[in-house]
Structure formats: structure tokens, C-alpha cells
């Protein structure tokens, strides 16, 4: 079985963070989102992985993943170019996949429990496809599956007004090569994209068997800033922190703390886990770093109060104002305006930024 990891998309909902990089490399608990998917594939025994690249952020993704050897996998790149839909992305992988079954995994999704059970469920039956599902509160916002008592899918409905179930499709699928024939036979939808749900529905219409697996544990699509913060919270709560950096005497540290090599929590700082602190970052005196925060590498924080936030890295934060529920991009400087006249905040804000002051 092979893996096809989708890494395209423009990331518009994550602007301005995605002005300078692909959404799949935004860190959650100091690890790029894409790496979670890659590790899930590897842990399911899938080491031949095709990474589908779109128009944006190709070089950054290739630089991060390389040939895959650093992650224990073998990567082939597939350049989709225009974002013509998930079925188009899958179709572009046809030559790479050959006669194998494959898992298609959206590279901006994180699953708490990985994909092992989905793959096992597919392998255990005589199926032509398998889909991962999760029960959601409002299925009208999702593609929804109707399944019978054995878990076999009977039909798919995209964003239905009257959902047949509360089981939404999340971004992981297993396919046999038969899906390529279905993709050849579907047309672009009203939005100009080849929809993978149309291809799966065609498999069902052809009498093919489609397995479903209801994913236990949490699942996050990290498409928006609030999703990144929530995924960060969930991932940190799962993280077994390792202290490889330095906690100075006089620092007050409680809870799970993941401290990378070279990171320092200085005397006079207060850190309450779960938190992750990247390499060579300094949590300085007078700082409060509160639960569910991740601070990336090479960052300095002094006299600041930060909680439930993600600081991507290479930044300096010295404001005395409280920072909560925030996503701060790379190379940001957040200082203090105290003592400056006229009084007021000084901002240099990029396009598509969101501030609440």
C-alpha cells in the first residue's frame, strides 16, 4: 500500500501566516502539521509516499521533507499545479500508485489516533475504497455518509440540508486503483473542481463496496487560525514533554513542559504546562507562559504574559500586555508602547491580519 499526501491549497483562511509559507508547515505543538500526517502513514506501515504539491509553497515543502529519509519514508513528488480538486490530485498520483492500493491523506488534517484502524478495516474486507468518518454536531457543513449496520457506505451527500447521519467525511481515504477509472468518468463540479465524493459515489453506483471507519479521538482540520490554536491545545495535551533544555533555579514550572535543546526557562519565569518551547528560545524573567502555548525556536520572551497561543518562532515578545488565543507568525516583534508619546499602540500590520486591541 502507498500513501498520497495532499499538500496543495492556497491557505487563504490562514492569511497572513500563509503569505510567507504553505499552511501545511504551520506548527502545532512545534511540529509542522504535515509531519503528523506523514508519521501517521509511516506508523500504518506505509513508507512509499507521493506528496502532491500545488502552486504555492512547493519549495518550502520539498525543503522540509527532502527525499523523506529523515522521516523514515521514501517520497516522490507529484506536481498538481492548479488546485482542481481532491479527485484531480488523486488522479495525478495514478502513475505513482500503479497497481497498489493507497491512502490519500489531506496534509492539513491531524488525527489523534492515526490511521491504523482505518487501514486495517479496509484490508480486512473485500473493499474498493474506505473512508474515515467522524460524528459531528452539524453535519450540514460537511460531506456526509449514509452507512448500513456493517459500516458499508450506501451513499454520500455533500453538505445536505437533511443529513442522513451525523457522520462527516474527514480528510483520509483508502482506495484501490479502481478509483482512477471513476475519476476519469466524473466532471468538474459547479466550483470547477473534481470532487472526490463524486468519484466515491460513482464507485457506489457501480456496485463497488466502500468501507467506513468512524475515527475515535479528536480530529482537526487546521484551515483557520482558531483551528490551529485548538489543534495545538489538543496536541499539547497528548504530548509527553521532554526537558532537553535548561530550567534555571528560581523558575516556577508546573505541568507537562516540552523543552527543546538549547531552550532556557530563566529564574523568575512562570511556566504552566502543557507547553512546548522550541530550541534556543528564552523564556525570560517576569514572563508567564500559560497552558496550551507553543513557542517555536529562536524566540525571546521577557516580561510577557502568554497563554493558549502559538508563537511560530524567530520572534521577540517583550510587551507587558496579555497575549491570549493568538497566532504569531515568524520573525514578529511585539514590544511595549509604555513611555512612548503620544500614547497609543504602534502597529505595522500585514495584509489580511486580524487584531483585537
Amino acid at each position, binding site marked *: 500500500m502507498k500513501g498520497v499526501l495532499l499538500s496543495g491549497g492556497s491557505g487563504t483562511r490562514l492569511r497572513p501566516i500563509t503569505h510567507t509559507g504553505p499552511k501545511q508547515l504551520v506548527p502545532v505543538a512545534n511540529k509542522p502539521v504535515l509531519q503528523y500526517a506523514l508519521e501517521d502513514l509511516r506508523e500504518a506501515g506505509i513508507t512509499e509516499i507521493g506528496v502532491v504539491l500545488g502552486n504555492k509553497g512547493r519549495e518550502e515543502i*520539498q525543503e522540509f521533507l527532502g*527525499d523523506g529519509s529523515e522521516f523514515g519514508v521514501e517520497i*516522490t513528488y507529484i506536481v498538481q499545479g*492548479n488546485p482542481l480538486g481532491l479527485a484531480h490530485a488523486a488522479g*495525478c498520483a495514478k502513475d505513482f500508485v500503479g497497481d497498489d492500493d493507497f491512502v490519500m491523506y489531506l496534509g492539513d488534517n491531524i488525527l489523534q489516533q492515526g490511521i491504523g484502524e482505518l487501514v486495517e478495516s479496509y484490508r480486512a474486507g473485500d473493499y474498493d475504497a474506505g473512508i474515515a468518518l467522524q460524528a459531528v454536531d452539524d453535519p450540514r457543513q460537511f460531506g456526509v455518509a449514509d452507512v448500513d449496520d456493517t459500516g458499508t457506505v450506501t451513499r454520500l451527500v455533500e453538505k445536505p440540508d437533511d443529513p442522513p447521519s451525523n457522520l462527516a467525511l474527514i480528510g483520509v481515504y483508502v482506495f484501490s486503483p479502481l478509483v482512477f477509472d471513476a475519476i476519469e468518468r466524473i*466532471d468538474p463540479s459547479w466550483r470547477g*473542481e*473534481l470532487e472526490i465524493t463524486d468519484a466515491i459515489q460513482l464507485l457506489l453506483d457501480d456496485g463497488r463496496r466502500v468501507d467506513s471507519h468512524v475515527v475515535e479521538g479528536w480530529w482537526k482540520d487546521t484551515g483557520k487560525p482558531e483551528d490551529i490554536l485548538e489543534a495545538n491545545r489538543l496536541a499539547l495535551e497528548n504530548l509527553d514533554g521532554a526537558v532537553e533544555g535548561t530550567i534555571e533555579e528560581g523558575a516556577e514550572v508546573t505541568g507537562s513542559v516540552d523543552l527543546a535543546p538549547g531552550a532556557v526557562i530563566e529564574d523568575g519565569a512562570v511556566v504552566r504546562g502543557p507547553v512546548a518551547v522550541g530550541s534556543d528560545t528564552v523564556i525570560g524573567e517576569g514572563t508567564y507562559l500559560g497552558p496550551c502555548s507553543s513557542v517555536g525556536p529562536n524566540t525571546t520572551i521577557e516580561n510577557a504574559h502568554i497563554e493558549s497561543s502559538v508563537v511560530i518562532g524567530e520572534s521577540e515578545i517583550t510587551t507587558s500586555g496579555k497575549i491570549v488565543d493568538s497566532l504569531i507568525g515568524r520573525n514578529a516583534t511585539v514590544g511595549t508602547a509604555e513611555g512612548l508619546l503620544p500614547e497609543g499602540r504602534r502597529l505595522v500590520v500585514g495584509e489580511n491580519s486580524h487584531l483585537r486591541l
Partner: protein
Amino acid sequence: MHIITHTCPSCGTVVAANELESDRVMKCPGLGCDTVLRFEDLPAEDREHFLENRDQYQI
């Protein structure tokens, strides 16, 4: 929809036809690969199909 791709003979990187057509001639985007890929590398039948249905391959 007929999806047309070309696989780099040197490194196995796969490139979609829309990408090849927009550049006509491009260095393979595979890591460390210097092979030159051309839209003309595609079979004539695929090139013809792509050009006749170009709108489908744009977004």
C-alpha cells in the same frame, strides 16, 4: 475528466499537464533533478485532448 501527467524519466517526479503546458519547457521540479521536461513529451493524443479542453484544467 481525463487527467494527464508526465513522469520524469530520471527521478520519477510526476507533473500535471496544466503545469507543463503553462511553462512549455521546465526544469524537473524533483529534488536535485536537472532533467528538462517539455509539454511535447506528452503523447500527441494527450496534448490534443488537453488543448481542446484547456478550460477544464484551469481554475
